[in-house]
């Protein structure tokens, strides 16, 4: 019997009203009760009460989830669904219910210290295309690149852009390279422990005298803010850094040419709904000359996950892609030419959906757009 | 089928406490469809109605429920009418709950009597019928009569909260209730309304009332071409204004002179409500009329306004109409203009814009005409009912038209409530071809 107390009481508070169906992107696609928070809670309760046995099928439904917290936000009864599911995953990871792809993910991260399984030392390959070296040996600030931006070529342009921005603004920063281990987010999201990773990462920063960490990855940002001991290192997301720089007038913008560029902004779940960082990216977008920002109907706390959240991509790639297509359609409805986000996972997921669906919408990370619109960049206008 | 025993004592003995009338004059007053009943019953309570129906059903008699007969010859001609069940003895206003704005009346009460009973509280039932002083509530419900004001207020199906009806089993049922919200059980109230007395005899009903409007006025708008009149009516019905009625006529009733010479269609717009709402709508309707190329627009008030709407409530059938044919065409509202054009030679045409109804009065029509028109109207997504016609035409065509796939469930309901076809045999669903 799997004991989910103290959250058993919390699960009892679900009155099965079903309003979570309006909030869950997996339900939007699958249309099945097993793809709702209500359904997941009912299954967990049934297992806890011994009504049904714990099986891989239960796990399939529990982990086929974006961990986007939209259900928690919209639950009229204020049930702490995020906590129920987090605790449930922790208890049920490494049981018969645990999906094999997540076992494999755990294996990779524990042994290779990153999600891709590539040698961890290859985390700085993205630098090779830059004409110049970036970063310094010693500084108080580290640019925390994260697994996705560091190891997936499709999004190399993000760290390339941001590091050049830092350079152009005269901000010294350290790149940890192979010393940067996975922040632990994918493990924690799956319900696996990340203690060793956390301990290592903190030690690695402290060994280099790092007092401040800036990252382009909201998931890393969220992990550092919630799973790491606080007060040791200041943690900033790139949008916060850029917003401050823009506010202080330190970013030399190019002159805009031609018509204003219509853009819309996608709030990454880990930055927006989970950390409340909504305004800084918008501040930056409004500061860029020649950019016309349009909001989606579903934005800020109501933004729909891009499909790349949680570990859904590992567990059900097709579902993640279907969700991305839906989010893309919401972006298209604004009439924007460019969809801007602040997360390499969102950028990757949505860009792939655009390519798959032959949708004429460019998907960029904010750092890419900022770099393109800075006077220092040699690239042509967007 | 068993031979009907025509002996009247079978009924009069079975229900001795009901008033039975056998004299030829009374029977002649209840003749219809070329049939004269052998017997007339005048019960005074719903329970009596039930017992009369049960006795008739068991004896194999064919029964026609009667109100005042204003619509007794609408539908396919009855195959038999042995008993006329006159419900005018149930004429009481049972309850007027003024604070909750509901009224409960028996089926034999006229609509005029109902309005009279609730008027002093400043309330009314916004249902138009052709002849409110004669038309009984039961008949109105059985026929689902409606008029111009359905545009804003809905029909009986929307305004009735519940009813009471007697079945051929002798039972009296009371579906619905007195509250505006009620979803308990099946909505037999809706089922019985418009069932033409073929499921049971309605004996009472409860309606929701509206407060009497503070003000009411009419705007008459004349157009040289019918197409423009319908475009104006469409635009008006799709606006944020809420006219109580929008009627398109090819000629104004006698007593009102035409607004302009050569006006092929006139639109009568009824505006009811608070003074400010009416004033605002008068302005906006006039402006819209001008924008849509009206030839002339004129307000109407007082007794002329009253008389106009009484006339329009007759829906194409004034008392002077005589023996002609009245067609009722139902359509998606946007097709009304198109259908209007099918009857350029008609004696009169009246369209209920926004609702999608067209009444056409003709001096005559052949079965072939009816079939041809019917198929044209079907092509526009509508239906055609021969509402009034000489008996010969009513015998030669199915006045209702084909019911299509809906006929089967409807037949199943008829079978469930009246297996022996005691009630209005042949009028609806069981026409013998």
């Amino acid at each position, binding site marked *: 019997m799997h004991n989910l107390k103290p959250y058993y009481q919390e699960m009892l508070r679900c009155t099965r009203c079903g309003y979570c169906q*309006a909030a869950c992107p997996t339900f939007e696609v699958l249309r099945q009760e097993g793809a709702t928070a209500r359904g997941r809670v009912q299954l967990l309760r049934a297992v806890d009460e011994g009504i049904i046995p714990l099986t891989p099928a239960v796990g399939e439904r529990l982990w086929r989830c974006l961990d986007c917290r939209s259900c928690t936000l919209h639950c009229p009864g204020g049930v702490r669904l995020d906590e129920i599911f987090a605790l449930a995953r922790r208890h049920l990871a490494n049981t018969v219910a645990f999906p094999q792809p997540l076992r494999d993910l755990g294996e990779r991260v524990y042994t290779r210290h990153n999600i891709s399984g590539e040698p961890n030392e290859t985390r700085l390959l993205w630098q090779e295309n830059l004409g110049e070296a970036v970063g310094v040996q010693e500084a108080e600030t580290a640019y925390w690149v994260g697994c996705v931006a560091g190891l997936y070529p499709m999004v190399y342009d993000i760290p390339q852009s941001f590091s050049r921005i830092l350079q152009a603004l005269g901000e010294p920063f350290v790149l940890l390279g192979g010393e940067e281990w996975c922040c632990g987010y994918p493990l924690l999201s799956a319900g696996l422990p990340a203690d060793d990773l956390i301990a290592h990462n903190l030690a690695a920063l402290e060994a280099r005298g790092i007092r401040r960490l800036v990252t382009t990855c909201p998931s890393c940002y969220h992990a550092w803010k919630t799973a790491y001991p606080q007060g040791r290192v200041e943690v900033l997301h790139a949008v916060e850094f850029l917003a401050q720089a823009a506010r202080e007038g330190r970013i030399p913008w190019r002159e805009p040419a031609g018509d204003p560029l219509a853009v819309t902004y996608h709030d990454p779940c880990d930055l927006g709904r989970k950390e409340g960082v909504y305004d800084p990216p918008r501040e930056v977008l409004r500061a860029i000359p020649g950019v016309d920002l349009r909001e989606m109907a579903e934005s800020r706390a109501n933004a729909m996950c891009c499909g790349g959240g949680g570990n859904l991509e590992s567990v059900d790639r097709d579902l993640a892609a279907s969700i991305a297509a839906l989010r893309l359609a919401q972006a298209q409805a604004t009439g924007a030419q460019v969809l801007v986000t602040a997360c390499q996972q969102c950028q990757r997921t949505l860009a792939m959906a655009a390519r798959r669906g032959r949708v004429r919408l460019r998907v960029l990370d904010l750092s890419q757009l900022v770099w393109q619109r800075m006077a220092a960049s040699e690239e042509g206008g967007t | 089928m068993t031979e009907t025993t025509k002996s009247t004592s079978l009924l009069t003995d079975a229900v001795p406490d009901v008033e039975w009338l056998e004299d030829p004059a009374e029977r002649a007053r209840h003749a219809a469809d070329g049939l004269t009943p052998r017997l007339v019953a005048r019960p005074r309570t719903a329970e009596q109605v039930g017992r009369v129906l049960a006795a008739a059903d068991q004896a194999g008699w064919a029964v026609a429920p009667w109100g005042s007969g204003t619509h007794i010859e609408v539908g396919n001609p009855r195959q038999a009418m042995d008993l006329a069940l006159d419900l005018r003895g149930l004429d009481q206003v049972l309850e007027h709950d003024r604070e909750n704005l509901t009224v409960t009346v028996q089926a034999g009460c006229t609509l005029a009597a109902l309005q009279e009973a609730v008027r002093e509280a400043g309330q009314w039932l916004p249902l138009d019928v052709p002849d409110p002083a004669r038309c009984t509530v039961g008949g109105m419900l059985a026929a689902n009569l409606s008029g111009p004001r359905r545009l804003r207020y809905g029909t009986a199906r929307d305004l009735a909260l519940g009813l009471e009806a007697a079945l051929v089993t002798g039972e009296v049922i009371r579906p619905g209730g007195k509250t505006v919200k009620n979803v308990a059980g099946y*909505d037999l109230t809706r089922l019985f309304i418009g069932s033409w007395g073929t499921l049971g005899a309605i004996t009472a009903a409860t309606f929701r009332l509206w407060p009497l409007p503070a003000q009411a006025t009419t705007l008459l708008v004349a157009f040289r071409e019918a197409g423009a009149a319908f475009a104006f009516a469409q635009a008006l019905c799709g606006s944020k204004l809420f006219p109580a009625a929008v009627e398109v006529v090819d000629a104004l009733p006698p007593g009102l002179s035409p607004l302009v010479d050569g006006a092929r269609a006139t639109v009568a717009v009824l505006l009811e409500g608070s003074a400010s709402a009416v004033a605002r709508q008068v302005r906006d309707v006039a402006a819209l009329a001008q924008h849509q190329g009206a030839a002339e627009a004129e307000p109407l008030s007082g007794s002329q306004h009253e008389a106009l709407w009484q006339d329009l409530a007759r829906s194409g059938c004034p008392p002077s109409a005589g023996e002609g044919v009245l067609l009722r065409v139902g359509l998606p509202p946007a097709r009304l203009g198109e259908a209007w054009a099918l009857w350029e030679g008609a004696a009169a045409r009246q369209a209920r814009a926004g609702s999608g109804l067209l009444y056409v009065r003709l001096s005559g029509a052949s079965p072939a005409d009816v079939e041809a028109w019917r198929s044209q109207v079907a092509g526009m997504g509508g239906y055609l009912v021969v509402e009034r016609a000489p008996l010969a035409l009513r015998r030669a065509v199915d006045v209702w038209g084909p019911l299509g796939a809906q006929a089967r469930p409807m037949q199943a309901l008829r079978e469930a409530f009246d297996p022996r076809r005691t009630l209005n045999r042949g009028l609806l669903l069981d026409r013998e071809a």
Partner: protein
Amino acid sequence: MNVEQVLESLREIVGPAHVLTSPEDLYLYEYDASLDRGRPHAVVLPGSAEEVEAVVRLAHEHGVPVTPRGAGTNLSGGSVPARGGLVLVLNRLNRILEVDIPNRTALVEPGVFNLTLQKALAPYGYLFAPDPASQKVSTLGGNVGENSGGPHCLKYGVTLNHVLGMEVVLPDGERVWVGGAAPDAPGYDLTGLLVGSEGTLGIVTKIFVRIMPQPEGVRTLLALFDSLTDAGRTVSAIIAAGIIPATLEMMDHTVIEAVERATHAGLPLDVAALLIIEVDGLEDELDEQVREIQAICQREGAREVRVARSQAERDHLWASRRGAFGALGQLMPSYLVLDGTVPRTRLPEALERVAEVGRRYGLPIGDVFHAGDGNLHPLILFDPTEPGILEKVRAAGAEILEICADLGGTITGEHGIGLEKISAMPLIFGPADLRAMWAVKRAFDPQDLMNPGKVLPPLEAVAEATP
């Protein structure tokens, strides 16, 4: 009947991915938003009207009961299979097929959420009048099945008043259209009969609805009262004055306190009741109506009347109403929401008697409801882990329904009879009424396979007629 063969045929109709038979999935479909449960033998998710037809035909051939389901937000157990069989889920049929502004109609599939239709109509300046509080998640098919109401139904009517026609799969699998675009078509009002029949007479596969232009303007007021009776009297007084508000919602002290503690909306904690009143229509008469309503409130003893001056203020007022269920959820883990309706003037008495039931059973009860049409929603709050609590709650609920019937009202204003209220049907219907309803049921479904065990008490339980 060979179960495996039937399942195989179902897989051929809808595709194997859409036939669910695992124990986990069957468990997931044995509940809805009510307190009832019942396990199906299989769950089917058809993707088209043709597939729905084929599934029903197959089920009928083999005598398999079918329970239709939309979003499963049903509050009376309507979506719960009472006799096993198939749960037939409609939410893959989720397209808006047509919006026809000149004719003011729309054609939708049953799995479309009510709010999705509203959002599709909004750019045209149109709306679909029935807007139940569940509109974010309840499907239009579900709204049709229950004949849902909502805050705007006093003025604009319930779902039935806005359905012109439907495509229905009858219990034997025949797919037919009832009603249509032309008004008052000859024959019986099958649309009127089917809407609100709780899925027991057929399954709707397309819904043809009437849509309306949005009103030109709207005004929202909040009135606070020191006594429930004053508030109840005000409700009647407003309507008696000839004003038909677009909405007229009431909340009692229990709810107000819960909402204020949860949301800090700025409501005093010592008021007995509040009313949210909205009037809509032409701008020309709205301010006049607001003044009149203010005067009536004050005359009936309102402590304070606030008028929203902006959209933001309006949203703020509504936030307290919308947050009510959730706020109550913070007080106790579970609740039973009732749906009895009484004539408006009996509201104060109804509320008092409901409160008395709460005291006698020792159960906290909050009231938040559509006062304008007398539709109460007492919420009985409880902790489901307390031994014997469910019986107690149901008993209290049954008493409350008796009160509503006693006051000349009905046992359900909008949530339906379902499973939950079958035993209360004799409170408002006599044996003849129930027999007539059974006659209707048998006319459509002689084998009693379409959502069986709902709405009507078993025929054997209905007393014999006196000859």
